[in-house]
């Protein structure tokens, strides 16, 4: 592994000062499950890393004025045991359950997954359909960016070198809403997504679709929303024909590539299948009013 220096701040203000003084030569390090692998593969060299795992400000899950707020250093394993996530972030929990291996999950963080910005990042589709925002902090202040704007391309985000991702927040899901996450890998355990999808639908009092959100992973240069498919669902009863059409429109939205994990054509077909299955399941899950 190439040599590097390591800074070990104990508080968030201290970390932001170090980053303010040294960015872009200083790179944040959370679980290291991307950073250390990139160094081993010689994909990246880092002059200086800054450990984030000791910053209490980046840990914990809390409710705050109608939102759930998740510290960026929350690990994938913590998503599986946190009661607030079970109640208000079920989709994120589903993604955590099929994320890497239990060993990696104990280190890998949600913040690291988003800032790494792989098109296959498994926390992204759930956060996209939950209408999440990320909160970025620097010495100059704090700003919020919607999930759909944060990732801009392969390993590229709107984060500035002097900023840290401090938290992720989303509105508590409505009562008449349901959703799901699903991924296809080359085998069952410990794999990167070949295709992934998340959906979230909300019904109105008459059982018609009030809002629908669909997000897809590993089928473009970044995780994307399928807006055209979402639009045709709104105001409709969530019946098989319209769900089939939403699946087809989702497949038309994506721009997948051929790679060692799968062909573009396979990915497009699987998008259709996953979206159809997830929508049908979610539509059935929302219990109609007595």
């Amino acid at each position: 592994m190439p040599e590097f220096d390591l800074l070990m701040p104990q508080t968030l203000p201290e970390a932001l000062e170090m980053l303010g003084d040294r960015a872009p030569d200083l790179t944040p390090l959370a679980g290291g499950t991307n950073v250390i692998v990139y160094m081993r593969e010689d994909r990246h060299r880092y002059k200086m890393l800054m450990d984030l795992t000791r910053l209490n400000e980046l840990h914990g899950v809390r409710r705050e004025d109608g939102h759930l707020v998740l510290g960026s250093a929350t690990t994938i394993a913590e998503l599986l045991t946190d009661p607030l996530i079970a109640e208000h972030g079920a989709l994120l929990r589903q993604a955590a359950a099929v994320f890497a291996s239990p060993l990696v999950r104990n280190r890998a963080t949600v913040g690291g997954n988003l800032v790494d910005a792989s098109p296959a990042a498994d926390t992204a589709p759930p956060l996209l359909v939950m209408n999440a925002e990320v909160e970025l902090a620097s010495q100059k202040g704090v700003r919020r960016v919607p999930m759909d704007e944060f990732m801009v391309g392969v390993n590229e985000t709107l984060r500035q070198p002097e900023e840290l991702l401090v938290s992720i927040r989303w509105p508590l899901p409505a009562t008449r809403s349901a959703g799901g996450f699903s991924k296809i890998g080359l085998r069952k355990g410990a794999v990167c997504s070949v295709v992934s999808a998340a959906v979230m639908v909300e019904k109105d009092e008459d059982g018609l679709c009030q809002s629908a959100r669909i997000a897809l992973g590993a089928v473009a240069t970044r995780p994307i929303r399928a807006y055209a498919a979402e639009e045709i669902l709104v105001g409709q009863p969530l019946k098989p024909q319209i769900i089939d059409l939403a699946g087809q429109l989702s497949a038309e939205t994506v721009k997948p590539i051929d790679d060692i994990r799968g062909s573009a054509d396979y990915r497009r077909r699987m998008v259709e299948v996953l979206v159809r299955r997830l929508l049908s399941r979610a539509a059935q899950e929302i219990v109609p009013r007595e």
Partner: protein
Amino acid sequence: MQPKMITLTVNGRKHQVALNPDETLLNALRQLNYTDVKNGCEKGDCGACAVLLNGKAVNSCLVLAWQADGSEILTNAGLGTMDNPHPIQEAFADAGAAQCGYCTPGMIISAKALLDQNPHPSEEEIREAISGNLCRCTGYAQIITAIQIAAERIAASALVGSGQGGKQ
């Protein structure tokens, strides 16, 4: 790049060592002679380097030693001895779950992490728990059997311990 004094408590023994910032926990442990912790891929793929870090099973190749400063580490060797093996270690031997043995310490750590949380796992749950540990020899069947045997034996000895079993 300057070394720093780091404190690691490994299998109950406290060590103070001067380490460079680019040293991984895996290398630090092996330098301290905890060679039961194996180096397979150094990329998080194989699980041969698994240890319990403050009670959680992790790939020690993906942790920097400085990040582990002040932590408690348990390796497979810390679970039991040849004379007094841990029930998981004994079950691995009895079931023929170790052939070349390279994956075994990491497998046992993942099994320990599972049984600590879930004393009666299903086969599916066992497969999931060892999904970050690769084995090139056994085909996994004996490993899964070993973990099932270990779970039964631990449950049985707990019954004996609490006076509900056939203790005489």
